[in-house]
């Protein structure tokens, strides 16, 4: 039996249009998606009508504070929505549902965006609202874009690190970080080295890592199916402070005798962290007897991570790796629109007094009504 996704289609209409609003961290994303009636398949794909993003960027060495991030979202949200509607060539009243990120994420930025969603829903004749779990947004958009059918999902971003697999209408978490997220670890190290935050600190680390030659010894902390990164960050931060602090200390590579550079530190941090991710992902593949890996989340756009994952998956029978580019990997509005529209098509909407955001919202709390495989 397949799920009937067209019980709630408006009479006389052959498609659905959803507006998605994302603002759980420093990206404000607005997307418009279109689904034609019938189940989504290789021949009936979701159509991206627009996908606009604006990022709140801070000076080098600074992270993004909730207050200023929320202010960024508040002051840009109307302009970005207008742009998205113009690009999609639709009017507010063409929209079937307004989807917003309900969590997890930073409280103040989430709040600013949900206020925009509620206001628009009321302005445009009470359009239904759909609260979306941010992680589910990443997973569903990744599946739709890549065509991965039932993959093990590695979700790696600034706020989340999880290995997820689908079972009985839930995306279940097989392994996750025990402390900080991988993107947070990389971003905070970028701050230590005062690497610019534009276009993204992780991207700049990736570019520097390409020039690194020496692998320094860092702790490797996989604990069962989970991993821990705060200790590694503490260790490498200390090393960087010793090397480039007030009294710089030269550190020499034991094998070549050459001095260790900031590029070597970026390279080593990436290699160690990504090896840990590959290890727990491979174990999850064995658990669920799968041979597909889908990488989603901002860190998923890192080419070195994709390459390392590919080396692992190639050794498995019929192994396949799926990843998306920065338009869909990095937080965006279209994924919220897509996952929200799937919810809407199975009759799941939120009353306005049930649209409160939450900073903690685990992936496995969501009932995946639109799948029954």
């Amino acid at each position, binding site marked *: 039996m397949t799920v009937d996704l067209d019980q709630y289609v408006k009479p006389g209409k052959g498609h659905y249009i959803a507006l998605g609003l994302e603002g759980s961290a420093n990206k404000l994303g607005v997307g418009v998606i279109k689904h034609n009636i019938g189940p989504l398949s290789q021949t009936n794909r979701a159509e991206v009508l627009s996908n606009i993003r604006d990022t709140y960027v801070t000076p080098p060495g600074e992270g993004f504070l909730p207050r200023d991030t929320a*202010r960024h979202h508040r002051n840009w949200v109307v302009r970005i929505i207008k742009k998205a509607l113009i690009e999609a060539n639709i009017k507010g009243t063409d929209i079937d549902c307004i989807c917003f990120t309900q969590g997890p994420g930073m409280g103040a930025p989430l709040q600013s965006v949900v206020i925009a969603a509620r206001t628009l829903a009321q302005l445009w004749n009470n359009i239904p609202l759909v609260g979306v779990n941010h992680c589910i947004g990443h997973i569903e958009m990744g599946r739709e874009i890549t065509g991965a059918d039932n993959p093990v999902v590695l979700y790696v971003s600034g706020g989340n690190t999880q290995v997820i697999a689908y079972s009985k209408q839930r995306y279940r978490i097989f392994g996750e970080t025990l402390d900080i997220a991988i993107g947070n670890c990389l971003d905070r190290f970028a701050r230590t080295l005062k690497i610019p935050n534009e276009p993204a600190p992780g991207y700049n680390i990736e570019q520097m890592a390409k020039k690194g030659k020496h692998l320094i010894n860092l702790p490797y902390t996989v604990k069962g199916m989970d991993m821990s990164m705060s200790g590694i960050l503490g260790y490498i931060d200390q090393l960087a402070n010793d090397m480039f602090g007030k009294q710089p200390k030269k550190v020499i590579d034991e094998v070549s005798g050459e001095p260790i550079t900031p590029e070597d530190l970026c390279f080593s941090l990436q290699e160690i962290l990504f090896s840990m991710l590959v290890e727990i992902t491979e174990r999850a593949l064995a658990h669920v007897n799968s041979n597909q890996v889908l990488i989603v989340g901002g860190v998923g756009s890192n080419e070195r991570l994709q390459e390392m994952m590919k080396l692992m998956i190639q050794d498995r029978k019929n192994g396949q790796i799926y990843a998306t580019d920065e338009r869909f990997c990095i937080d965006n509005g279209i994924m919220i629109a897509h996952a929200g529209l799937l919810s809407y098509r199975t009759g799941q909407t939120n009353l306005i007094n049930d649209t409160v955001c939450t900073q903690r919202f685990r992936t496995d709390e969501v009932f995946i009504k639109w799948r029954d495989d």
Partner: protein
Amino acid sequence: MSSLIPKATYSAPDLDESKIFTPGDGIHTTDGQTTQISDIVINAGGEDRDKPTEAKDTPLGHLRAELTTLQDQINIFLTERMKQEKNKQSEQEEADIERRILDDGVDEDDSD
């Protein structure tokens, strides 16, 4: 359009009567005093690229500007209340320290 003048009411158990906020007369803009970017960002060499757009000369535009004034009033009022609350707490803590030193932590009322 008079129907678009915003108003806010604040009540709390310790206040005898509710406090009502209205934007009042005067020039209202969307550039609020209490909704500026943090000093931390500016001091770190950042610039403010996220200023709000100016209010349009329409009923909704005026509402935006007046709401910003209202928000400033509320923010100032609530910050002041938080400060008072904090002062009360630290006075209480000071009194506790004094009592501990003078009475060696023994509260006579509780001694039986």
